[in-house]
């Protein structure tokens, strides 16, 4: 008799989902699905609204990375207006976006994932949390909290409110930066760098413990996608889309982000509200690719900042030029954070950063606009169509968790194959399925446009679909 395992609340990730694991007659895992079970049509809500409202509406898709949506959305509206933000406006957007990267990466690594790494995946959940981390390794917890706060402050100081900032607007940013705010942010740089470097050192010293996990946590061949600048460095804000295969060979060297639709298809599966984007040239489902911190490091030549490049070299020496295991998202996330801090520092030291010309104005000059940027979890695409008066007729978003959808399913399957033994859901299996999903740090509320807390249910299903075992928490 075959069976399916369903894991339901993936605790400590945002959104709403369910996991089912399909067993065959011999009790072997044949398939696994990560279902996204909630849906709220944000694309629909925006129809009929003036396009200038889009950045703020889009920011409300997600309380975790509102800034990323504002950036991609404002870029899409820039495109509709056919204007470039002023150079200082663009740089300030970059700084805000990087502040978001720092705070969100810190949340993912320190608050959500470090408990597993510190205590082991099977440790008592009562200890395996950020409070436990604060007891066992106070410096680690303190560094995480400090980094997150610094990132949030950047957003708040430059863009206004930290949850739903309003400072990023079509054409640039709403207000110029003051010397006082710049200096306040710069004052925090040395401590931020020290904090993330301590975390990197700790992670490296502890890495070997997780060899089994690294080998089985979504360790497979796939393509990777991310934005790079003219020199092939990581670019979180602009530049070109680069896609490499599992061997690091470029599938596309420099795609103009505006043409992403020519390269990416979106498949819909009946078991999930989350669409599955794929690389068109390879077809569905072979055209699976991953985005996010790991993908950013895999596609770029370098990060483009000295300390992060030094760490990237060590990273590649340890895990290869193109890291295949999703477990390495954690490691990559730390290097991504280090790079973001260095980049913020460099941008704020730029000679024109206090320039008061921070916004360009224009009317509706195109009927269609696309904005692409790197969100903490990966490449984010906003695509709108408007009428002549600038009223939104149609909108589509391809978000990071969507890009990673197929890879997440594959990762869950791999972990299930490795850990499902017998007909019942075991704790270690449950813990690891949750943990592998957490590598991708999926932000389900935004990817499905759902509001609400993540809750995970896991079900073990027989071949005929009957539920053999079920666990929810």
């Amino acid at each position, binding site marked *: 008799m075959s069976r399916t395992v369903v894991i339901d609340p993936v605790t400590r990730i945002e959104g709403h989902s369910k996991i089912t694991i399909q067993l065959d007659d011999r009790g072997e895992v044949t398939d696994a699905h990560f279902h996204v079970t909630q849906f709220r049509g944000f694309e629909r809500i925006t129809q*009929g*609204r*003036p396009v*200038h*409202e889009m*950045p*703020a*509406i889009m920011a*409300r898709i997600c309380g975790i990375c509102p800034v990323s949506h504002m950036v991609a959305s404002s870029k899409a509206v820039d495109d509709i207006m056919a204007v470039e933000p002023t150079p200082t406006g663009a740089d300030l957007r970059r700084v805000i976006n990087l502040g978001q990267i720092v705070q969100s990466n810190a949340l993912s690594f320190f608050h959500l994932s470090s408990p597993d790494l510190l205590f082991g995946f099977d440790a008592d959940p009562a200890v395996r949390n950020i409070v436990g981390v604060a007891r066992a390794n106070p410096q680690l917890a303190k560094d995480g909290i400090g980094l997150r706060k610094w990132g949030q402050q950047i957003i708040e100081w430059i863009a206004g409110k930290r949850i*739903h900032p*309003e400072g990023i*607007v*079509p054409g640039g940013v*709403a207000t110029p930066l003051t010397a006082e705010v710049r200096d306040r942010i710069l004052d925090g740089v040395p401590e931020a760098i020290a904090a993330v470097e301590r975390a990197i050192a700790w992670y490296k010293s502890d890495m070997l413990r997780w060899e089994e996990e690294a080998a089985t946590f979504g360790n497979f061949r796939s393509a990777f996608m991310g934005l790079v600048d003219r020199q092939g460095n990581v670019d979180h804000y602009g530049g070109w889309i680069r896609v490499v295969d599992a061997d690091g060979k470029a599938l596309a060297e420099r795609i103009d982000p505006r043409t992403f639709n020519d390269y990416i298809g979106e498949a819909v599966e009946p078991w999930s509200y989350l669409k599955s984007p794929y690389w068109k040239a390879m077809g569905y489902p072979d055209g699976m690719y991953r985005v996010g911190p790991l993908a950013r490091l895999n596609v770029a030549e370098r990060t483009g900042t000295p300390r992060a490049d030094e760490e990237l070299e060590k990273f590649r020496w340890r895990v290869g030029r193109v890291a295949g295991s999703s477990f390495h998202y954690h490691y990559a996330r730390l290097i991504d954070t280090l790079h973001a801090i260095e980049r913020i520092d460099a941008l704020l030291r730029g000679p024109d950063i206090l320039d008061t010309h921070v916004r360009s*104005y224009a*009317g509706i000059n195109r009927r269609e606009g696309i904005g692409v940027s790197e969100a903490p979890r990966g490449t984010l695409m906003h695509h709108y169509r408007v009428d002549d*008066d*600038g*009223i939104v007729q149609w909108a589509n978003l391809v978000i990071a968790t969507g890009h990673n959808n197929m890879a997440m399913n594959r990762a869950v399957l791999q972990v299930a194959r490795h850990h499902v033994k017998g007909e019942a859901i075991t704790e270690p299996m449950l813990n690891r399925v949750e943990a592998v999903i957490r590598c991708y740090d999926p932000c389900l509320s935004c990817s499905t446009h759902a509001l609400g807390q993540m809750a995970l249910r896991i079900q073990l299903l027989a071949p005929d679909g009957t539920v053999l075992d079920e666990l929810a928490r």
Partner: protein
Amino acid sequence: MSVYTLTIDGKDVAGSDGQTIMEVAEENGIDIPGLCHLEGIHDRGACRLCVVEIAGSPKLAAACVTQIAEGMEVTAHSDALLEYRRTITEMLFMERNHVCAVCVANNHCELQDTAEDMGLTHFDLPRISPKADIDASHPLFAIDHNRCILCLRCVRVCDEIEGAHTWDVMHRGLDTRVQTDMGIPWGESPTCTSCGKCVQVCPTGALFEKGRAVARGSKRRRPFLPWMKVVAEERGL
């Protein structure tokens, strides 16, 4: 011109023949809430927020359109009046679709300010959620009927100050809408002079300058049009 004496909230006040309760209250530092009243244009009594009690009268009266009389005893503030005004404010919200968080007028909105003053913290009345359009055909301005409270300030300022009379009102009841030139798109209006006065006087996010991002309010804080004061004085309003 005869002078009348009366009391408002127990305070002895005086005003001249033809003045409204609202004006006399204002002169005497008594604040009566109102969303359609605007100095410089004629009062219309559209929003009913300014309701007051007059001793001996069984009905509530709108202070902005009720003239004073000798010996009047007006109650402008009481728990009951606050409750009425709160409900009126709530009804203004329920009649259309107000989503402050993503509204151009967020934090620059008189309806929002009024709700705050009334202590309106949540809605009990059922939502009507009407289907309302946006007309963004004008090159500079747009109207979002989702946010209109039918105060008719736009209609009055356009008629009385600009002299264009582009704005008027169409349909009835819940379907009532302000319209431009017999319901043609604003951008095609032959009478609109694009002066922007309607946008300036609109208390909410209904009329706004195109291209404004959310919460980047489209108007300056009042008093915003100094000439309106002059006009008011000239006309003895």
